[in-house]
């Protein structure tokens, strides 16, 4: 599941890869380090401080004046070169400590913006080899070197630490250490692909590098990523003591396992096939980085020392300049930008609500309430049905219990998470809530009356957020007091897994309301996208034509499994028919009808779905849809395609369509609608649309999102193909729904 990888990447690197600095033009010739030097580079010698608190000890502090969070950029590497020369020539030294400005900040790894810009593999290789040379010099330093780190220690910062003799990590909640490079489509290229497997063994290193997970302090110590944990207050003292030999600190060692596993060809071949299967299931051949990393790590223990730099440089040169890396970095930047939505214009952040109300204990309401409770917000979940409340509470507790069992929650935190969700029959005692999110029936007057009742209890500035997917936020807000605090907060099902939240701005919604709602979405670990109040907002509006085209293909005689596997192969997380089964036919039809009402003929749904059956055939929740689904609780059962589908396929024109045509019909139906969304400014810009398409529809992340995909193909070619599809006989014959292949909106984007 690529999109799940993508979810984790931005989260784990929240404050990691600082990108606020506008990277200026490259210099014509690369500097000696191989990295471009920015125009605003500070004077030589200012990025690293060397202090000598006692004789024989040097404390080296990374402190780039031009960065709020220093990274390994050209000025820093330039200064590191100078400092290393100084240290190498000082024979009086016994110990050296490398550390950050303060215990919660070390270095934020490599310069991601530079990665996005760079296009020449040779240039990349050159830069990588130059940094390798620097890190090798750190490793060869005679005095004992100690990396005293804390806060986020991603990628390059961790690779640097591994070149030191010992690694000390601050034992604090904010500490995170790991190698997240594969999340961005590259791999650890500054020695990490070699030093980590040598340090903690191949299985551990593969787990770190392939998942890209950033580990908190205790697991990092347990797995040997670091040698010792220390309280923030003691970091400097203990690091000095260890560097000077006054305190013992054993370097992590795997002992005999090193020989039994890492250097045992039999063991490594077993690991290779296992890991390869794991990578295949996630990357499906679409992402080159994990495969390259796998090869590097598996052969690392036997690789000759002098070949490390070349091996890594070669791999990363291809990856960093490749399409996938650019796509992933693009999405990464878009999601970083989305995080800024949670801040006011003056940079201040709204306080996280302490009390919240969720109304409606159905699947969505229960999911939203559960995420709030897990984010330590006191939630009152209101519903008239006590059975629905009991089910919602039970499923929340099951989730808490699962996290407790997996040690993601300690027992006391699990208790708190349980305490944070309270079921309420009706709307009693909601007065303290700073935000109320409703997820009741999609009927305007029901939603309006819920909000009306809440408005009487809640403070005037409490946010009233609707999780509607088909009603207009403006219409819901119309008769409420203080309509400026009414907003759409569209979560996707299942709430705990889907990373996107559409924050819908009604006509009267205030900026403060938008900011507070986005901040809450971020606090829940979601990525907010602000959309205009148009039918279907962004994601459902794009998905509507896609799913409808799929149903039309089905009615036209296309094989369900073939279409699904084509789209899976295209890079969608699941095929359209599996998706329809998951969503439920009733919900899909309701959404389609509201799109039709909103946009007219273009969105006219094919009646195929309604002909498929009654209330007992609505997709997975009823056990039958396009597929037969195993009963709930049956873990071994597999989904199989339903046998009676031929009964509903009234035509046969689609049965012999070539693969490319099927894919194009589905994708271009989305592209056409996306162009209209951009034209109408439903979202701010193209990168936001890309982000929403990846996080909301699961659109192939390696393609960089829907619009990036269209742009890469070339809008001209897209238009041509759409015109071709538009003129197809069946498209003409269908009446409504033909105009979704009208190339005009896409053509209009070309002139922008």
């Amino acid at each position, binding site marked *: 599941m690529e999109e799940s990888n993508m979810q984790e990447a931005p989260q784990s690197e929240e404050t990691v890869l600082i990108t606020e600095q506008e990277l200026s033009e490259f210099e014509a010739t690369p500097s000696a380090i191989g990295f471009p030097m920015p125009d605003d580079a500070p004077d030589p010698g200012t990025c690293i401080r060397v202090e000598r608190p006692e004789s024989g000890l040097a404390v080296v502090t990374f402190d780039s004046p031009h960065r709020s969070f220093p990274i390994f950029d050209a000025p820093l590497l330039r200064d590191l070169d100078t400092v290393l020369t100084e240290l190498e020539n000082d024979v009086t030294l016994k110990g050296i400590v490398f550390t950050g400005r303060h215990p919660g900040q070390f270095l934020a790894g490599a310069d991601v913006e530079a990665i996005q810009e760079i296009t020449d593999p040779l240039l990349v290789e050159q830069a990588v080899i130059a940094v390798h040379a620097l890190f090798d010099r750190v490793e060869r330093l005679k005095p004992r070197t100690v990396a005293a780190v804390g806060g986020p220690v991603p990628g390059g910062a961790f690779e640097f630490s591994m070149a030191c003799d010992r690694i000390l990590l601050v034992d604090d909640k904010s500490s995170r250490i790991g190698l997240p490079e594969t999340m961005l489509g590259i791999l650890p290229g500054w020695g990490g692909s070699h030093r980590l497997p040598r340090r903690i063994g191949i299985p551990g290193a593969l787990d770190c590098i392939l998942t890209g997970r950033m580990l908190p302090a205790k697991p990092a110590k347990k797995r040997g990523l670091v040698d010792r944990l220390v309280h923030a207050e003691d970091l400097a003292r203990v690091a000095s003591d260890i560097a000077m030999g006054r305190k013992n600190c054993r370097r992590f060692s795997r002992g005999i396992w090193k020989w039994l596993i890492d250097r045992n060809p039999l063991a490594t071949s077993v690991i290779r096939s296992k890991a390869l299967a794991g990578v295949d299931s996630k990357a499906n051949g679409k992402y080159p980085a994990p495969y390259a990393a796998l090869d590097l790590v598996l052969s690392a223990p036997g690789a000759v020392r002098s070949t490390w730099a070349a091996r890594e440089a070669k791999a990363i040169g291809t990856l960093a300049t490749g399409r996938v890396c650019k796509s992933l970095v693009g999405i990464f930047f878009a999601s970083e930008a989305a995080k800024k939505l949670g801040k006011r214009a003056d940079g201040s952040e709204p306080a996280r609500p302490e009390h919240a109300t969720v109304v409606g204990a159905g699947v969505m309401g229960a999911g939203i309430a559960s995420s709030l409770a897990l984010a330590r917000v*006191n939630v009152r979940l209101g519903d008239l049905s*006590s059975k629905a*409340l009991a089910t919602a509470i*039970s*499923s929340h507790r*099951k989730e808490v219990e699962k996290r407790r069992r997996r040690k993601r929650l300690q027992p006391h935190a699990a*208790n708190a998470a349980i305490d944070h969700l309270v079921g309420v029959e009706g709307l009693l005692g909601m007065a303290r809530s700073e935000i109320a999110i409703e997820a009741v029936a999609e009927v305007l007057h029901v939603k309006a009356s819920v909000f009306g009742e809440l408005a009487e209890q809640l403070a005037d500035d409490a946010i009233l957020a609707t999780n509607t997917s088909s009603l207009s936020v403006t219409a819901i807000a119309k008769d409420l007091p203080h309509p400026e605090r009414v907003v759409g907060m569209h979560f996707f099902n299942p709430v705990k897994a889907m990373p996107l939240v559409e924050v819908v701005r009604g006509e009267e919604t205030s900026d403060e309301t938008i900011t507070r709602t986005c901040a809450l979405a971020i606090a829940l670990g979601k990525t907010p996208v602000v959309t205009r109040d148009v039918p279907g907002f962004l994601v459902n509006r794009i998905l509507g034509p896609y799913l409808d085209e799929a149903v039309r293909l089905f009615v036209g005689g296309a094989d369900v499994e073939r279409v699904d596997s084509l789209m899976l192969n295209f890079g969608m997380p699941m095929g359209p028919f599996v998706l329809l089964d998951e969503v439920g036919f009733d919900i899909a039809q309701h959404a389609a009808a509201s799109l039709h009402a909103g946009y007219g003929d273009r969105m006219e749904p094919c009646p195929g779905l309604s002909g498929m059956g009654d209330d007992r055939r609505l997709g997975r929740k009823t056990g039958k849809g396009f597929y037969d689904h195993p009963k709930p609780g049956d873990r071994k059962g597999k989904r199989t395609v339903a046998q009676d589908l031929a009964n509903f396929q009234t035509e046969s024109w689609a049965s012999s369509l070539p693969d490319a045509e099927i894919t194009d019909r589905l994708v271009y139906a989305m592209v056409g609608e996306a162009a209209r969304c951009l034209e109408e400014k439903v979202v701010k810009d193209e990168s936001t649309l890309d982000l929403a398409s990846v996080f909301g529809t699961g659109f192939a992340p390696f393609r960089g999102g829907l619009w990036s995909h269209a742009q890469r193909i070339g809008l001209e070619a897209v238009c041509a193909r759409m015109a071709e599809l538009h003129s197809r006989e069946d498209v003409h014959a269908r009446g409504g729904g033909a105009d979704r292949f009208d190339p005009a909106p896409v053509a209009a984007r070309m002139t922008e």
Partner: protein
Amino acid sequence: MIAPSAPSIVIAAGLRSPWIKAGGQFRGEDAGHLGAAVTRELLARTGVRGEQLDEVITGSVGPPHDQANLSRVVALRAGIPQEVPARTVARNCASGIEAVTQAVTEIRAGNGSLYMCLGVEVMSAYPLIMGRKLTGFFERMMKARSLLARLSTLASFRPSMLAPRVALLEGLRDPISNLLMGQTAEVLVRDFGLTREDCDTYATESHHRARLSRDRGRFEREILPMAPLSRKPIMDLVRHDDGIRDDQTVEALMRMRPYFEKPDGVVTIGNSCGITDGACALLITTEEKASELGLQPLARIRSYAWAGLDPSRMGLGPVFSSKLALEQAGCTLEDMDVIEINEAFAAQVLACKQAFASDKFAREHLGQDEAMGEIDSVKLNPNGGAVALGHPVGATGGRLLLTAAHELAAGDHNLALATLCIGGGQGGAVVLERINGSAA
């Protein structure tokens, strides 16, 4: 008597969990969670903010061993800010009332004006305890250094050491008179010449009244439907006391065997209170503060009193304590419109009833010539009592006050007496008074 200047203290609001038979739907509960659930809801419904409280006082007889100050756990889990202190109090079966009377004392002393008072008891969680013998064995094993010493200590192990002590049973035995609580009721049966039929008839009536009150929704105003902690998914909220037997008949009760004194005793499981889990929270404040908070109080606390007596006749506690409380309130037994006497045992309530009405008892034990008066059965436990609902020891006191306070409005009454007997030989009583304009 209360000084005229003393503030008028009220029960501003209250809520309780359903009373659930131990080992039933609350078997996965823990006291901290159960207490916090009612507290949080009471705050939400009254709109009182945690930081406005002066203290959280929780009564509990057997707090869990891992929640040494149960009250503090309850307060913090309920989201009350850490600045608000909390204490756990105990007076055996009256712990729930003790929490309230301590708050009253604090308010009278001028130390505060708003208290969250709880009674919490999860009897399902009462542990089996390893005996002294086994503890001693482990101690010796720890101390044994040499191999030989260890082996010889190991050899001293006897299977009998594994016999656990049942906290529930031992808690219900009075260590001074060495009588189980049920045995003290048998003493009263002999003292007052009660019969098995008297007791079973009374018990049947208790179930009958409780059923009627439940069916007409009388308890809805005091019970908070709960989503109990449980390993299995819960299907619905728990909203009713589950000890009430709808089809209870005297004949069925008569068939049960005496539990405490065989073969001639009259106290059976059927005419005793059940072992029960539950929690109750009351907001105790002054009348002035209540109106400041915009609350319509349930009842005024007119007076309260505690009294001591013979531990082997502890069941008569209500008689002794009620005399004192009524004197303080300046009322007579006859003035009381509602009388809640906790039904530890049907026999014990009947004995109290006789003692209240007996001139002889008054002369011998109460130092007065005339009896306090007859109790009209209609006034006594109009909604049934612990025989039907159950008796979560530490929480019962809170329920008596809550039920009596609601009954004032529900039955359009003026004065209520809530009283109970206390293991170890005590009685507690509180006189409640309706406030004009109390919520109906």
